[in-house]
């Protein structure tokens, strides 16, 4: 069964801390994505990656960075956590466009609270 795993389901951090959210997929997908989801705002794309060591900014990259050193792993980094980064963070992966009739596969999410 295909799987996207995220390092934590729940995380509580303090303002100013550096936060690492890890995502691993076992489907050999080229594409990986990080979203945040907030009530009334829907899914918003933070960063995505089409290949190892490649990254592209999404709609709301400010305050975040990413790392993709290996194909299966995509990390989201909050350089200095702030309270407005309290949110549900979702990682997803997908195969290259046109290669399949599948969509994106999402992880279970990490609910991050910044105090």
């Amino acid at each position, binding site marked *: 069964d295909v799987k*996207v795993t995220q390092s934590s389901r729940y995380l509580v951090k303090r303002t100013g801390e550096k936060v690492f959210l890890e995502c691993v997929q076992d489907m050999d997908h080229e*594409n990986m*994505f990080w979203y945040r989801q907030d009530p*009334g*705002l*829907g*899914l918003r*794309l933070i960063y*995505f990656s*089409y290949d190892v060591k490649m990254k*592209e900014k*999404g709609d709301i990259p400010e305050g975040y960075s990413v790392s993709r050193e290996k194909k299966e792993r995509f990390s989201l980094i909050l350089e200095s956590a702030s309270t407005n980064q309290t949110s549900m963070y*979702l990682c*997803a992966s997908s195969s290259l*466009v046109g290669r399949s*009739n*599948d*969509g*994106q*596969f*999402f*992880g*279970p*999410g990490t*609910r991050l609270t910044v105090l």
Partner: protein
Amino acid sequence: SQKIEQNSEALNIQEGKTATLTCNYTNYSPAYLQWYRQDPGRGPVFLLLIRENEKEKRKERLKVTFDTTLKQSLFHITASQPADSATYLCALYYLSGNTPLVFGKGTRLSVIA
């Protein structure tokens, strides 16, 4: 920029009826459109994908239509059950550039027994 509207935030229907959810978009048509299901506190789950040259796609009790003239997709769940209660998201993909999926905000469906 592209705008996606899902007909309503919430939809209540009686068990056994057909639920119909709407996804409208502006500007140019996507290469394909996807539908996802999301349960509270969980990540979305991919359901169906329909390409711009396809009018209709079915999977068990699910049916999706795609009308590029109306700039609209309809998502139907026939013989709905309380277990179908969830939020349903539509997402659009455009071939131009490295643009990823654009998601709608979703419609929360409640199937009442």
